[in-house]
């Protein structure tokens, strides 16, 4: 499952970043590392870009980039 497929409010655990080069690397550097948990917090008017809470901060990505992040959906609205 890809980060881009999640709905607003869904929590996820990162499995792997599947795009390379500078973009993929930057995504990892911003905290999308195997095992890390996060949540899709909102999306812009047309559904793109999305805002994601991860590592205690908020980052926005385009869907094109979110498609390069493999995640698994996890339950529990533990911190909502």
């Amino acid at each position, binding site marked *: 499952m890809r980060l881009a497929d999640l709905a607003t409010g869904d929590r996820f655990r990162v499995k*792997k*970043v*599947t795009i*390379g*080069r*500078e*973009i*993929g*690397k*930057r*995504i*990892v*550097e*911003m*905290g999308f*590392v*195997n095992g890390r948990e996060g949540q899709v*917090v*909102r*999306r*812009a*008017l*047309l559904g*793109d*870009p999305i*805002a994601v809470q991860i*590592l*205690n*901060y*908020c*980052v*926005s*990505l*385009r869907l094109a*980039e979110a498609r390069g992040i493999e995640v698994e959906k996890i339950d529990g609205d*533990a*911190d*909502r």
Partner: protein
Amino acid sequence: MRTGKAWRIALVGNPNSGKTTLFNAITGAHHKVGNYAGVTVDIRQGRTEINGQPVVIYDLPGIYSLTAYSQDEIIARDFIIDERPDAIINVVDATNIERNLYLCLQLQELGIPLVVALNVCDQAENMGIVIDTGLLSQLLKVPVQPTAANRKRGVKELLAHLPAVVGQWGQVRAPVYYGGEIEAEITRIARLLSEKTDLAGRIPLRWLAVKLLEKDSDAAAKLRRYPGAGGIFPEVGRHIRHIEAHFGNYAEIIISEQRYAAVHGIVREAVRQPAGTGRPTLTQRIDSVLLHRFWGLPIFLVALWAVFQITFGLGRYPVAWLDRLFAGLGNWLVASMSPGIWQSLLVDGVIGGVGSVLSFVPLIVLLFLLISLLEDSGYMSRAAFIMDRFLHAFGLHGQSFLPMIIGFGCSVPAVMATRTLRSRKDRILSKLSLTFISCGAKLPVYTLLAAAFFPDRAGNVVMSVYLIGVAMALLSSIVLKKFVFKGLSTPFVMELPPYRRPTAKGIAWHVWDKTCHYFRKAATVILAASILVWLLTTFPVSEPTAEQIAGLHRQFAAEHPEATEADWQSCLAGYRQEQALANSAAGRLGQALAPVFAPLGFNWKIGVAAITGVSAKEVIVSTLGVLYRAGDNGDTEGGLVAVLRSDPEFTPVTAYGLMLYTLLSFPCLATLSAIRAEIGGGWLLFSMGYNLGLAWLVCWLSYQLGSAWF
């Protein structure tokens, strides 16, 4: 430890880590801006003392990592490697310690002496984050000092750590362990580097080896300059393929993940983060309004409208005062100097040119006051989030929106506003595009021509020109993206930082910095260019011959039998002006270029106006006034409208063409010099050629179609 010479200390940290606040707290009011290596990102420089030892502090651009991902990162990295500061203060945001320490480990890999400022630790405390500073310092093997820069807490103590580390280059105290497989590759490449190049003393080879495995384009490009380095690349390629086969993912990603794993290990030991409290933070609550899926856009548009209204509504008054001041200065010079070339140079050249540019200063101050407020509070990145989808369709970045809107007022602040864009290519692209936006100075040209040739539909005609401008800006960015900036897609991985209250000092600094830039430009480039335009329109000086005057008098007397002597004198004065301009270099250039302008339906008079319009777009109106001798007062619009209409060569189709030319041709001198200052002369020439070519093409099309139609 060196004495006598000032220590050079660089501040490095993530964007929004409070780096600049810390810089202000350390240096007080003593700073200035320096430009480095021809790039226009400013590195601020300040001074302080530690126990009598003078220290220079450099505020490097905020960065997330030392990759070659953005211009800012390359600048910071080059500064560290080439300038070799005596030590670094790494500003770490305590509320987001994990991502911030990622950069810290990268800095350490460079072998640079380093002190960590654990900033905004008061906020971290409030959030329930507990950091064992002593243990953190032990694990990182560098001094760690908690600070709260906004309250000036911990700053003295931070500086007190510096003497112990200054100058200790080359010791990598806490190297990241990348795991057996990768470590073996790193060692092999580092050995190759030491055999084939003489870089060993200058850069840690282990760092360079890691960068090469990460496929860092900038590091590879720099290494390629070494004659012996050629043989290294195939080796590196082989090692990368080996790593990728072994781990089943890209090498650059695996290495970044390993670094994060090291960070995670440190954080797990030294930091206790509370489980979610369930209560949304203030920033989250503000975002649920400002970034609301449906309300976010209207709120943004209202904010934009407010910026525009305040800048150009409120700014109108001081601009008018300054205009009057310069006009008064001109009149005073006219009264107190004997008429002649020197008076004309000062009044028409210097005051007319530089004065009209300086009168924009209130707009610059107001606009940057507001932009800095939006930027420092954290709203600007939200605006980019809201607008990105719409602009991305045209190849533009979300943050290009604001500069384009400002461009409707004046292109100069708009060009300067593109500085908020992260990538240089995006900055160039939005500068090239926003020259098509109709600025305020183009409006007098439209209103004159619309009043003269489209009296019944003036509003619609002017509106259509504005819309064509927007369409050209968007279309041209698609085209430029496709052919000039091929393959470029700046990713939109952008932090939405917590909202912070902007500080008066920070805002004042931004405004002061921008205004100074502008002043410096007015005093140099614009002054020179204004004098040049004056020279072209004044020389060579020509006087009508007695014969010409006699001929004109006969004609005048025949046409106006009841005219008085005063009427004749004003007619003669207008004739002199017209002849002087027609015979000047600019006038001759216009006549020489007549074949170029002819396919557009422009006679030589319009051609001259198109040329003088370079100094400022409004000048097109006054030039037409002089050349068409619109009565004793060259720029009386009512008179000019009538004269233009009576010229059989000047049809509505020509008028519309001139409007399009005004819209699309390259912008005024002030804007050109702003563009040059931001992106350099090469791009400026490209931009001018591009604008001119497109303007000609569109005007030609419009003239051919228009003539066939009407």
